[in-house]
């Protein structure tokens, strides 16, 4: 693949992300002008994709993007209602284009029709939007404007005027007089302010026959009313607001049957201009930067931080009380540097939610096509992962989801016969476990057919006859290259090139995949991926001369005792008698001879109090809470119990991997018992 097109591929990926987010936002009730802006943006996105595909030399992709663009055009003209089924079809279309693009990037040939799976639905939509007998409803005559101005409206603006009036929204006119030198900036500013209060349909130049200087404009805004203060108009700009069209003047016969138009918002509280948290800022400028630039900036920042540390050390060594103020300023610089580091890290990170957004439409479509109703739940969408991992994870996830629906979940009839609910369950959760981001995909289906896996393994020569094969071995076998229990390929999965590809992709990211299942109770596929960098909140503790960070999400409680306790002892925490092990013993460092009086009570993340393992970790001192930039240790330097480190003023602060430390503590406690 020509590397000079890397930017184009990357931009296409961004466009798909934006398209998915906008489609997801359309599923919840929005003010009409927000819906319209989203549809406009989707129209532009597919238009851009069409052009890019042409540039890359993929004519069939370009045709498919053009077809999607046409559907968005029909929506923005108000000729298609924004319904759940329409959004679902559009999501499937965007997903098909995105998958197609991934295949093209891998060097696969173009398919005949990227939108094959939704061809029927697209045809129905196009037929639905076709005007009957050529008649197109046009209500622009209701605008209180001179005929020559009405003629200036484009076809799109006319359809929008008609659509909003049928939806019962008045059209306001905003006239302003702008200075010749600054009119472009001012017009943009006022247009944005008006767009925030309603749907900006048109900006028309006005010809004024008086002796006033400047340029005159009329903005057509669909909104129940406009707030003058919110329009950001200067006093000398002669703002005037007038109602240009009243929806009450629309003939009742038309209101009763508005035809295929954008659905009005659900009745309820008055629409507000603010977007839901998930929505994109509509006109946010997106900067694309080569990752190397961010790398170089991070390295430079690190050098600056090191200089700051040296300066801070030099100041401290002078021990001059008059330097208290400069020392405090050093603290401010430190805080500022951490903020910049976090911001840089943020540039590389995306929320796990965006991965979930890719999966959801596919599950719904598969569920419908296979006739297997499924309740899909997500957890941990707020966690973050590196953008580079997101792209690599999507395909493996889609395959796992396909597998779960195709092989895992039973038909409603089969589930009923087994006493299960007809609707199956698929839960996808993300959690941070030590230095890993863990994804669990659980279904409540039939589980892996281990007898069949064993038979297939024997037939393929992967297992030896007469030997006992453990449940773990058999599950692991499903991840071997070319392994499939399906005699013939199904359209959905079972093509023999699935789980091994998932495993290769996950291991290629330095991760690990494990599967387990129980007959008739379901399956669990667990992916663990290492995080190279993250900002985490830690409890700072000291042992000897060394400082450590304990991730706060594992800390249940911090406790002290009057009498020192030695490793291997027990302490009472909230009425429970817990085993105590010294952190030094866990890490192979020399233990304090006098015991320890401070304890960090650790709990396995996500474990319930009654079932989880709690353990008290003895430390010499608790030094407070700190938020830090974690850098993971490379494989060659991997140390048990250490997740990574963070550069601090007084050197590297090692961040503990709580789950690994709990394991080390248990090993150490067992060893103590064995030695007695």
């Amino acid at each position, binding site marked *: 693949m020509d590397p000079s097109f890397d930017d184009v591929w990357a931009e296409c990926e961004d466009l798909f992300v934006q398209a998915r987010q906008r489609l997801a936002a359309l599923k919840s009730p929005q003010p009409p002008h927000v819906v319209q802006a989203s549809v406009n943006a989707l129209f532009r996105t597919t238009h851009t994709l069409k052009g890019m595909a042409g540039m890359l030399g993929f004519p069939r992709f370009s045709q498919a993007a053009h077809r999607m663009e046409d559907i968005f055009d029909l929506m923005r003209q108000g000729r298609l209602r924004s319904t759940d089924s329409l959004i679902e079809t559009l999501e499937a279309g965007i997903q098909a284009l995105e998958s197609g693009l991934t295949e093209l990037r891998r060097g696969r040939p173009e398919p005949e029709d990227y939108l094959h799976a939704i061809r029927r639905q697209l045809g129905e939509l196009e037929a639905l939007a076709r005007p009957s007998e050529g008649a197109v409803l046009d209500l622009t005559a209701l605008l209180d404007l001179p005929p020559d101005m009405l003629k200036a409206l484009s076809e799109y603006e006319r359809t929008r005027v008609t659509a909003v009036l049928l939806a019962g929204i008045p059209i306001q006119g905003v006239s302003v007089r702008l200075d010749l030198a600054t009119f472009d900036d001012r017009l943009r500013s006022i247009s944005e302010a008006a767009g925030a209060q309603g749907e900006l349909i048109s900006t028309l130049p006005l010809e004024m026959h008086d002796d006033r200087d400047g340029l005159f404009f009329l903005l057509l805004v669909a909104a129940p009313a406009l707030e003058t203060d919110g329009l950001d108009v200067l006093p000398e700009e002669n703002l005037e607001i007038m109602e240009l069209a009243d929806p009450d003047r629309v003939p009742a016969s038309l209101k009763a049957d508005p035809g295929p138009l954008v659905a009005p918002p659900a009745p309820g509280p008055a629409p507000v201009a603010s977007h839901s948290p998930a929505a994109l800022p509509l006109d946010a400028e997106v900067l694309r930067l080569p990752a190397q630039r961010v*790398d170089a900036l*991070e*390295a430079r*920042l*690190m050098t600056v931080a*090191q200089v700051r540390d040296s300066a801070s050390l030099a100041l401290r060594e002078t021990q001059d009380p008059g330097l208290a103020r400069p020392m405090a300023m050093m603290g401010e610089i430190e805080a500022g540097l951490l903020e910049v580091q976090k911001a840089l890290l943020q540039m590389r990170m995306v929320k796990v939610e965006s991965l979930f957004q890719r999966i959801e439409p596919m599950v719904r479509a598969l569920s419908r096509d296979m006739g297997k109703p499924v309740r899909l739940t997500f957890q941990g969408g707020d966690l973050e992962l590196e953008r580079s991992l997101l792209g690599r994870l999507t395909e493996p996830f889609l395959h796992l989801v396909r597998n779960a629906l195709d092989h895992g979940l039973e038909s409603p009839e089969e589930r009923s016969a087994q006493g299960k609910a007809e609707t199956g369950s698929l839960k996808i959760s993300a959690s941070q476990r030590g230095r890993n981001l863990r994804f669990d995909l659980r279904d409540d289906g039939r589980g892996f057919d281990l007898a069949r896996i064993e038979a297939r393994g024997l037939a393929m020569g992967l297992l030896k006859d007469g030997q006992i094969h453990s449940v773990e071995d058999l599950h692991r076998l499903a991840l071997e290259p070319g392994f499939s229990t399906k005699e013939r390929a199904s359209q959905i999965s079972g093509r023999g090139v699935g789980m091994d590809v998932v495993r290769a992709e996950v291991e290629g990211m330095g991760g690990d995949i494990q599967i387990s299942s129980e007959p008739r109770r379901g399956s669990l596929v667990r992916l663990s991926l290492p995080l190279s960098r993250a900002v985490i909140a830690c409890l700072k503790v000291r042992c000897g001369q*060394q400082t450590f960070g304990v991730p706060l999400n594992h800390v249940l409680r911090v406790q002290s005792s009057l009498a020192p306790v030695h490793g291997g002892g027990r302490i009472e925490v909230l009425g429970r008698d817990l085993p105590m092990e010294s952190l030094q013993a866990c*890490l*192979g*460092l020399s233990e304090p001879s006098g015991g320890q009086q401070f304890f960090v009570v650790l709990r396995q993340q996500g474990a319930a109090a009654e079932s989880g393992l709690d353990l008290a970790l003895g430390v010499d001192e608790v030094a407070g809470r700190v938020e830090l930039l974690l*850098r*993971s*240790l*490379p494989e*060659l*330097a*991997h*140390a*048990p*119990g*250490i997740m*990574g*480190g963070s*550069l601090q003023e007084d*050197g*590297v602060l*090692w961040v503990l991997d709580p789950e690994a430390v709990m394991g080390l503590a248990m090993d150490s406690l067992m060893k103590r018992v064995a030695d007695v």
Partner: protein
Amino acid sequence: MSESRLLLHARAAGRAFLLPVSELREVVPGSPVTPIPSGPPGIQGVVLHHGEFLPVLDWGVVVGDPDHAAPPAVLAVLRPRLGLPLEGLAGTVEAPEGGLNDPPAEDAWGPILAGLCRLGNQDLPVLDPDRLLALLHRLRKAR
């Protein structure tokens, strides 16, 4: 001459040796090494390199000479992201024609060498990074 025939002539753990330049990422000034609690054998700790932790070799463990774990003057960064602390650099030399000779069986560096290279009137050991990494993995497994 092609880069693949160029050798870095350096000194570490009290001994002069050669290293193919093609195996190097870069050579940087040495900086204090931060030890890792319960870190793996053969790694004395890490330094920060381009914003990431870089493991630094512990010659003492690898070649069995614990007296040579002094702060490095220079750090040679290998392609697989491992820092070799060096006592000094003599420059680069062109690999002579002909193959390498086997090191003597009792040479403590034997497991990490590609062989001995005859330069002038002396035999200099040529480090093999792949063998070095394999040794580090063996040390870790044996822990």
